[in-house]
Structures are given as C-alpha cells and as structure tokens.
C-alpha cells in the first residue's frame, strides 16, 4: 500500500500545456477520483503517475521514494485501461498469470495466486476462454484480476467503465468499490462521469483546463464548489447560477420583483468582499430552492419533467436565466404559470464574477 505524492508535476506536448504544474497527495488506502471533461489532463496525470508518460517537470513520490524517472515496471503500480488491453491471443488464465510469469514466479505460486484472484472476482467459469469471446463486463473483470494478481502498491484506473453499457456500469462500479474496500489499496481513478465520481470517491480532484479546480470529498465538491466551473460541472443539472447586483444585504436579480435578501451571516462577508455593493453570482442547487407562495423570488414555469420521486421544474426568471428547481411531484405547475420560491439559507453560495471563485464564509480562507 502506498502514498502517492505529486509535486509541481506538469506535462507539455510542444506548445500545448496538457497539465499545468500541480500538487496532489493521495493517502495510503484512499480512493481518489480525477474528474473532469475530456481533454482536461486527467488521463495524462494518471499516465504520468504510472510512468507510461514522462513528466516535463516536477517530482512524483511513491511512499516517499522518488519514482519520477523510473520505468513503469519499477514503480509497483497496476493500471486498468479503458479498453481493457487484454492480450487477445491468450486465454483468460494466461492473461491473469502474465504479470506473475513476467516476474518468473514458480508454477505453483502462480496457480495458487491466480485461483485466489479468480475466486475474488468470480470469473472461474471464464478461465479457458479468450478475451474476444467475453462480454465487456467480463473483460473488465479479467483486466481487474490481472491488475490485482501482483498485489501492487497502487491501482490506477483510466475510465475503466467507459466502454461498458450504461446499465452494466452500476454493477461494475459497486464491484470496484467492493474490491477497494476488501483490498484497501490506494486507488486513483479517472472518469468524466460525475455520478461515478460521487459514488466511488473518498476524495474528488476536479480538473479543467489542465489544472486542478478543487480537491475535496464528494460532499464538499457538491455543496461547496470552489469556483463557477465546479459548480456547473458537478450535479445534474449543475448549480443554478444567477447574476445580480448586491447592495445593503439585498441582491437585485434581473426580472421583475426579484430581490433576494442575503442571510445575515453572509451580509458581513459580502459587504467586505464588495466594499458595500457590487456584481455577485448567487448559486444554489435545485434542491435548495423551496417553492412557496410567499417566496421572494419569482419566475415562470418553462418546462417540467417528472423524475419519478420528484419533479424538476425549469423556471424562467428573466430572459437570461432558466433555473432548475426540484419540487414535490404531487404539486402540478402547468407550463407558463408563475411560480414563487425561496432559497434555503443553509445552501446558498455566492461567487465573485471577477475571479469566478466562491466567496467563503470561513475566516482565513
């Protein structure tokens, strides 16, 4: 088991900065998800940790050992590829045994270890088949077995569920999570699917534009996004973000009669930030909006979708902003009717449009 430490690690391909210098520490036994849209540098980061990609600058430490310039085979890590990368000309058994054979282990030791891993992943019935004949899920199980068999210090997974059917992903997600709990191995997992990230991660590293946007637990990333990108990217739909003018404890939003009274504990912070008044972005999750006739904010129902347990209302606050409100499924809101709502004062967030960063209530941040 291992701690992975990145210090100012960066990657350039010619003029393209694929990963800007980043610092990140992944603790022993932790499940860390690198999350971000495609092209944000998350896979490159993972490949640099593995050694499949060399770094342009910075240092990578594995359990305090500097592995920056070591060959992948000298790093004691396993890598699970998006498209499995199984050896097509070998049987499942030969695939799983490959890492052990490459190390020249004895026949008995290999057999014993393969059997253990096969039992753990429940793939005993596949052993004599070739990868080409297996379903995507089974191929991924074999790929996981091949990664597990050597007992590596850390697992790196590059969108391991990306190539699977949607309904099968949930099953495999649970399996990978279970494996992580059983093995308690340090795992770095790359995905662009925020649902996957929320479900699996101990900590999420949100990346965009070649740099880290936020590092935090799923709850932190969801409830306290560090900036506008994270607020929009996490959640489906993302956080509602409405621009308005702040003055004297009230945010005036476009649209008739939209005056939002800032909760008292935020007033001081906003006064300090804007020196009395200024442009601000109010952010709130769909479930933070409370529909009520006494609500201080207003809009018109633009559309409403029934999601089974709840209804998602899409409300037109003004010509720019359509916001999303999670409302009771039993109350009907026909399209075009006016609707009033409040924001749960515990769940409101404020962003500074100049820096695009979240405004923090906590002192010293």
């Amino acid at each position: 088991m291992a701690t992975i430490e990145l210090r100012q690690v960066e990657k350039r391909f010619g003029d393209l900065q694929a990963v800007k210098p980043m610092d990140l520490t992944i603790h022993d036994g932790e499940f860390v998800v690198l999350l971000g849209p495609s092209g944000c540098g998350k896979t490159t980061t993972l490949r640099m940790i593995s050694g499949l990609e060399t770094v342009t600058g910075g240092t990578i430490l594995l359990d305090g050992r500097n592995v920056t310039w070591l060959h992948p085979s000298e790093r004691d890590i396993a890598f699970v590829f998006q498209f499995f990368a199984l050896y097509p000309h070998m049987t499942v058994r030969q695939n799983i045994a490959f890492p052990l054979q490459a190390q020249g282990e004895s026949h008995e030791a290999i057999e014993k270890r393969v059997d253990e891993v096969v039992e753990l992943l429940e793939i005993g019935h596949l052993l004599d088949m070739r990868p080409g004949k297996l379903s995507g899920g089974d191929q991924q199980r074999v790929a996981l077995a091949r990664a597990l068999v050597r007992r590596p210090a850390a697992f790196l997974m590059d969108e391991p569920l990306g190539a699977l059917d949607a309904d099968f992903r949930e099953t495999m997600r649970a399996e990978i999570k279970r494996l992580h709990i059983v093995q308690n191995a340090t795992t770095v997992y790359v995905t662009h699917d925020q649902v996957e990230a929320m479900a699996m991660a101990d900590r999420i590293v949100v990346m965009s534009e070649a740099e880290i946007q936020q590092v935090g637990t799923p709850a932190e990333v969801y409830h306290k996004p560090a900036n506008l990108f994270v607020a929009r990217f996490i959640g489906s739909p993302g956080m509602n973000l409405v621009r308005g003018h702040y003055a004297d404890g009230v945010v005036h939003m476009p649209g008739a009669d939209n005056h939002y009274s800032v909760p008292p504990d935020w007033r001081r912070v906003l006064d300090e930030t804007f020196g009395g008044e200024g442009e601000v972005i109010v952010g709130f999750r769909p479930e933070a909006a409370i529909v009520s006739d006494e609500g201080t904010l207003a809009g018109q129902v633009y559309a409403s979708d029934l999601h089974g347990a709840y209804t998602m209302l899409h409300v037109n606050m003004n010509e720019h902003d359509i916001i999303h409100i999670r409302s009771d499924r039993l109350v009907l809101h026909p399209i075009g009717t006016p609707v009033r709502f409040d924001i749960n004062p515990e769940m409101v967030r404020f962003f500074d449009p100049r820096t695009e960063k979240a405004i923090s209530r906590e002192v010293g941040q």
Partner: protein
Amino acid sequence: MSSVKQATATGADTRLQSHRHLSDRAIQNIFIWPTLILLIAFNVFPLFYSLYLGFTDYSAIARQAPVWVGFENFRSILNDEQLWEYFATTGRYAVASVGLQTLLGFGLAMLVREKFKGSGVITTLILVPMMISPVVVGLFWKLMYNPTFGYFNYLLGFTNPATAPDWLGSRWGGQAVPGLALWAVVIVDVWMWSPFVMLLVLSGLNAIPEYLYEAAVIDRASSWFQFWRITLPQVAPLLLIAILFRTIEAFKSFDLVMGMTGGGPGTQTELIAVNLYRQAFLGQWRTGRSSALAYIILIIIIAVSNLYIKYLNQMRGEG
C-alpha cells in the same frame, strides 16, 4: 443549321438506343468471354493436356503422336535416383533460403518498425531487390561473384583471386568446396526476397495495438518476454503466410538459378525445376516424362502448402 443539329441529335439518340438494346447479360458476355477464352487456351488446356502427356511417350520435336504408356513415366521418375538427388537439393535450398529470409525479414521489419529519420527511404530501398527481374538479378550477381573482378569477395575482404572463394564454381583456393554454389544461390535469393517477408511482417507488427505493450510494461514484462509472448504470437499468422509463399516459390525456383549457374557446377545447383526445364526443352525434349515430373512437383507443393494452411487455420481457430 437546325436540320444538321437535328440529325446529330437523332444520331446520338440511335447510338444510345443501340446501347440500350444490349442487355446486361450481353454486356457481361462481351467482358467475360475474351478472358475466359484466353484462360482456357493458355491455362486450362495446357493443364489437362500436360496431364494427358504425362501418361504418354512423347517428344514435342519428334514427328510422332503421343503414345499412351500408362504410369510408366511416373514409375521411372520415382525410381530415378538422380532425380531424388535433385529433389533433395531443392529441399536443402528451400529450407536454407526460406529459413534465412524469415530471420532476416523479421529482423529488418523489427528495425524498420522503429520510426527514425529516413526510415521511410530506407524501407523503400530495402524493397528494391524484390522489384528487379530475377534473370537480371541472376546476371549481375554472377558478375558480383566473379572471383577475378567481382566485388562481393572484395567486400568480404578477399583481395587475392588465387585464395578467394569462387562462389559459383564451388572452389576455394584451388580446392573443391561442394555446396558453395548452392549457398551462393541461397544468398542471392535471401537478398532478393527477405524484403517480401519484411513487408508482410511489418504490416503484422503495425497491426499490434500499442496498448498491449503498455499493458505488458505495467505487468513488468521485459523486452524479451514481450517479444516472445506478445510480438511473435501476434505476428505469427502473417509470418506463416510469408513462409508459405516463399516455400512454394523456392520449390519452383528456376529463373535465378538458371541465370547464375545453369545448374552447375556439375549438378550442384540442379534444382528440380531446372532439371525439369532441361528434360522438357533441351536435348531430347522429353515432353511426356517432363509433364509427369511437373505433376509430381505440383503434388509435392500442394501437400506442403496444405500442411502450412492446416497449421495456420489451427492458429486462427484458437485466436
């Protein structure tokens, strides 16, 4: 003016009309029959006629009709120890030449696969020997092998013709070295056809996905282990096809040897195809007997090819 236009227009119309009268089937026939007739005249007829001649006593230059002799030709060929000697020479030649081509071709493919500055040009240059006519190759290698002024020996470091090997004469420093001439022919065949093996292996190598090697590196496989467990099995089907082609060609090998040694010295490079030519078109023109011999060679080649194909299918079935 307008009437001329009219006439042209109607002319074009009638031509179009006449095309329309040709049914699809008629057009098919126009295209197919000339080819078919050529094929029948120059391939199918000779094939069956030579099979018939194989059972006759016949010489193409004698004023005498073929005389049916049954299996006599085949019996005499299979009992002819001299001919078995030629078959053995051909076998040795095929094993040596195909074996070396495979090794060299594979090696070249592994080299050229690495992209380096000028690798494209080098690949093209390597392919040149394959594109030259075998007779031309035979003739200029005859010059290169010449013990007095050929530069093959010079390149090997032999500068004194008296002590240098006379490749095509199977002599070295005044001593007879049997087999030297056969090796000389093997060297030329390897020079000429290794690029062919290289080409097929190269396409096989390029088809191996990069992620297999990435997975292998992660799995801590050494380069050597990767070669034996990934590269070789992945390329094997194409390599086998290359070997199959070259084996068939080696058994039929004629033009190169004829151009270089004509079977000599003595019968040291008398490959079976060379002997076939000798029996058929030189001296007595033993058309009947040589037809029978040609069929025996054909049967051997089919048998050998079938072994390969069986193995190939087995490998594919597993894959």
